[in-house]
């Protein structure tokens, strides 16, 4: 009973936040609505006794990912209201709503027709069973570092690739600028610092680039 009320409370938070993300004109408001949705999902996780995931949901999603969104919004200064009336493709919005409604109808039909619940059986290994009495963080840790050790290491590689990709993409010196620096015509001109003095540092960087 209490579980039931909590579920509907969490679901209401989630759906209100999700609709807010889509209809808010300002990107900052969308991000704040996204936090609301993510906290609602954490509530749903708690209802299902996934306490570790609820904590991770708040720390990683609401605490890191959405803050990254807000950081980029503020950095780029795009926190202006967006004109939602622009339609580059005629009829895009009605079509989008139709596509979304079709997805929803398909998913709900599948869910409600399959009233038997999930088919198949869970693992008979007591380490994997949710009612075996150990803490869920311990259970996840044991299974993650034994059965899913290879997948876990692949995520480490994925994270490294992601960081390198972000650095390469946002490097302050774009490849086009670098070509200009190496162009002999532009190298003949003395480069000036903002105060008008010869900028020795600039020549150093060119030599470093050439080597």
């Amino acid at each position, binding site marked *: 009973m209490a579980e039931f009320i909590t579920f509907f409370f969490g679901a209401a938070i989630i759906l209100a936040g999700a609709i807010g993300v889509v209809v808010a004109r300002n*990107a900052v408001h969308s991000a704040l609505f996204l936090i609301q949705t993510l906290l609602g999902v954490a509530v*749903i996780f708690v209802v299902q006794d*996934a306490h*570790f995931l609820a904590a991770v949901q708040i720390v990683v999603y609401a605490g890191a990912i959405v803050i990254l969104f807000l950081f980029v919004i503020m950095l780029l200064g795009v926190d202006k209201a967006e004109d939602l009336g622009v339609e580059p493709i005629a009829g895009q919005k009605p079509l989008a709503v139709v596509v979304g409604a079709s997805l929803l109808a398909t*998913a709900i039909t599948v869910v409600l027709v399959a*009233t038997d619940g*999930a088919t198949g059986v869970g693992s008979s290994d007591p380490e994997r069973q*949710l009612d075996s009495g150990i803490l869920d963080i311990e259970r996840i840790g044991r299974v993650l570092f034994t059965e899913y050790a290879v997948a876990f290491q692949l995520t480490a590689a994925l994270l490294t690739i992601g960081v390198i990709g972000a650095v390469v993409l946002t490097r302050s010196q774009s490849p086009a600028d670098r070509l200009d620096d190496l162009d002999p015509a532009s190298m003949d001109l003395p480069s000036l610092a903002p105060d008008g003095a010869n900028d020795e540092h600039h020549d150093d960087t060119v030599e470093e680039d050439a080597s």
Partner: protein
Amino acid sequence: MILAELALTPPYYLVLSALMFAIGATGLLIRRNPLVMFMCVELMLNGVNVSFVAFGADLNDVGGQISVFFVLVVAAVEVVVGLALVVAINRRRADATADDVSLLRG
């Protein structure tokens, strides 16, 4: 009392999950600001996470929670690379929408 007999069965979670996924997909198609489009992708990923946990609880197996863990990692990487792309695009052209970069060239 009718309410006392109600139990939380997987379909409740799965319908919620379907609603989140559909709202996220609709938003992804409607919005033109790439940042908000990324947020809609996060909505869709979270909808799937809810159903993963529900299935895991139904089968009494920790596999659902492990899947959520991996989805979380992939979502974090996706956001990092995606926001780097947004920053790189905005450096060349301010206020770029998804339609301005549809040719994937500056």
